[in-house]
């Protein structure tokens, strides 16, 4: 029984690891509240100035504040900032699952 469980576990985790590895190649990194604007710009290969402008901040090269901190300081829900950033990325040619309508890509 224990042997069968261990073998099953090996296959399940191998399958999951393979699925995540495939995603590594094809999907864009989701945006999280802990990420800074330059970090998001790096993961999406866009200039950070584009994203700073999208959330109404003057671009600063050493601004490493996480989105959650920016949201708190500006009295805005962090989800709003994420939405603004996703929209800017979509306009720059990137897509995110949260922006895509069920039948296709975001406008």
């Amino acid at each position, binding site marked *: 029984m*224990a*042997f069968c469980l*261990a*073998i099953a*576990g*090996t296959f*399940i*985790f*191998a399958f*999951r*690891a393979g699925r*995540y*590895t495939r*995603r*590594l190649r094809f*999907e864009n*990194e*989701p945006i*999280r*509240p*802990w*990420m*800074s604007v*330059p*970090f998001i710009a*790096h*993961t*999406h*290969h866009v200039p950070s100035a584009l994203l700073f402008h999208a959330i109404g901040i003057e671009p600063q090269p050493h601004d*490493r*504040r*996480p989105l*959650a*901190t920016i949201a708190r300081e500006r009295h805005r829900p962090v989800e709003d900032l994420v939405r603004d950033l996703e929209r800017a990325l979509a306009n720059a040619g990137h897509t995110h699952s949260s922006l895509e309508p069920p039948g296709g890509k975001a406008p």
Partner: protein
Amino acid sequence: MSERILAALAQYGFPALFAVVTIASIGVPLPVSLLLIVTGSLVAQGVMPLWGAIALATAGSALGDQIGYAIGRYGGAKLIARFGAMLGGPERIAKAEAHARRWGGPGVFLSRWLVSPLGSVINFTSGIAEYPWMHFLFWDVLGEALGASIYIALGFFFSDRVLELDAALGDFTWMILALLAAGVVGWMLWQYVRTKKG
């Protein structure tokens, strides 16, 4: 919790990295692999120097491991007296100590990077088993340096895919553990069948 830790790393850099890896190595469950991968990504972005990141992650992890070892070595007897029944009784603990002595160096080394979920348990059992501290320190620093280098290098090379990379590596680690468990149980089964036949 993960969000706060990663936000601290993104904002404060080295002090946050050192504090988190130290605390995690003592045995507090924190997302260290993701932290190291994000560190690699920050190195790729030019926010942190590569060798500084590896050295600090190694030093912090090794410090936490020494604390875990010391707890096992100097407080182990008291803890066993108090919680021994919960850990499976004196016979089982004696078996774990014997394993720690037998697999000492390689066990410490591999649990730093290949089967890292076992790391803090092995620190503790190595201390209880009174595995020589200098040997423990040697294998520990070697393993932690390799582990930090692997995770930070992966974060460096896949700097734009840190979340998916962490998920893939997490499942890969559990796959290795399940494979090891299958190997051990399979070997025990084979021994049992062989004894029955003989």
